[in-house]
């Protein structure tokens, strides 16, 4: 395996990338679950090659109000890793972690848009933002360390950068990095969560094209 050609990826390569998502997100999910002491499941990872105009739609629509924590990756793998949740879900998660107001989304309120909007409008405190950053740190660490031991590549991540805004606006940042090298973005996307408790979110691993080649080569492909 020499060069990865985005348009000519074979099934084997897709399978391997999906498995990387599986292992990475599996570890991250376990770390998250232990941290908030709540059951977290994950769905089968999706490996998607997207046109830029499709990118902003992946996390529930371009205007969806989400929390995004972004890490830039370094050493053997370049690119970005992003952790995204709907803002209401991140509110719920921070409450679980800090042990406050655990009933922010109780049974009756689940379908009540007003309540969701109220939660959306409420600003996070410094303490809550710092807790969310720490959640981001720990799960990105878990994801990347499993990827690193699988591939024997050295992978470091930056400090977490956080934004709470429209999903499309947040996703424009990794999309622009991809835009410098091509007309499509390849990402490994894993949805995780406690789906009964509206706690779901996404891990996105977005390596550069060269780094995909590095990953596949390290695995003997």
């Amino acid at each position, binding site marked *: 395996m020499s060069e990865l050609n985005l348009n000519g990826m074979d099934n084997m390569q897709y399978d391997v990338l999906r498995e990387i998502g599986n292992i990475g997100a599996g570890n991250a999910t376990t770390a998250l679950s232990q941290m908030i002491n709540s059951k977290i499941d994950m769905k089968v990872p999706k490996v998607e090659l997207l046109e830029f105009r499709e990118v902003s739609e992946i996390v529930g629509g371009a205007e969806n109000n989400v929390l995004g924590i972004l890490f830039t990756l370094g050493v053997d793998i370049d690119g970005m890793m992003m952790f995204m949740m709907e803002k209401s879900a991140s509110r719920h998660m921070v409450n679980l972690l800090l042990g406050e107001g655990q009933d922010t989304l109780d049974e009756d309120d689940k379908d009540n848009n007003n309540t969701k909007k109220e939660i959306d409008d409420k600003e996070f405190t410094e303490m809550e933002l710092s807790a969310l950053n720490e959640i981001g740190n720990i799960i990105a660490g878990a994801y990347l360390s499993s990827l690193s031991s699988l591939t024997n590549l050295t992978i470091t991540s930056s400090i977490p950068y956080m934004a709470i805004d429209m999903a499309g606006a947040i*996703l424009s940042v990794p999309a622009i990095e991809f835009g410098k090298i091509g007309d499509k973005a390849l990402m490994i996307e894993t949805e995780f969560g406690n789906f009964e408790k509206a706690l779901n979110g996404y891990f996105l691993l977005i390596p550069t094209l060269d780094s995909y080649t590095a990953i596949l080569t390290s695995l003997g492909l």
Partner: protein
Amino acid sequence: MSKMIKVGMADANVCITPDALTTLGLGSCVGIVLYDPVKKIAGLAHIMLPDSTKIINNANKYKFADTGIDKLIEDMTKIGAGRANLVAKIAGGAQMFSFSNNLEMMRIGDRNVEATKEKLNSLRIKILAEDTGENYGRTIEFYPETGKLHIRSVGKEQKIL
């Protein structure tokens, strides 16, 4: 029935009144509206990067401020817009994350806005209004009927330019 035509990232579209144009969740990208107030024809491009000459893979013209504007003018004159009538309104170019160690990535929003203005100036297209920079995302809608650009952001009042 009037339609609301969606424009994605690195994409563009044109319309004639009563239709309207929108792009959702603009971040560091810039939404460039060109408008012929006489014919009530509008075009909207959603560009991601400032300069096509700095990038090897530049097949998609709408990805860049420079080639995106040229192509958009071409698309608009094709459906009857007058080149001399064109005016512009622009929005976007936010800095979504405050990267502490990567200046180039941090300034991409600003550079997109600068490149857009430079290109419009060189083509002598007047910028009637702009809502750019800052650190938040924007959804924009443009109505050729009124010539107004509507801008929505999370937790902010709608702006009309």
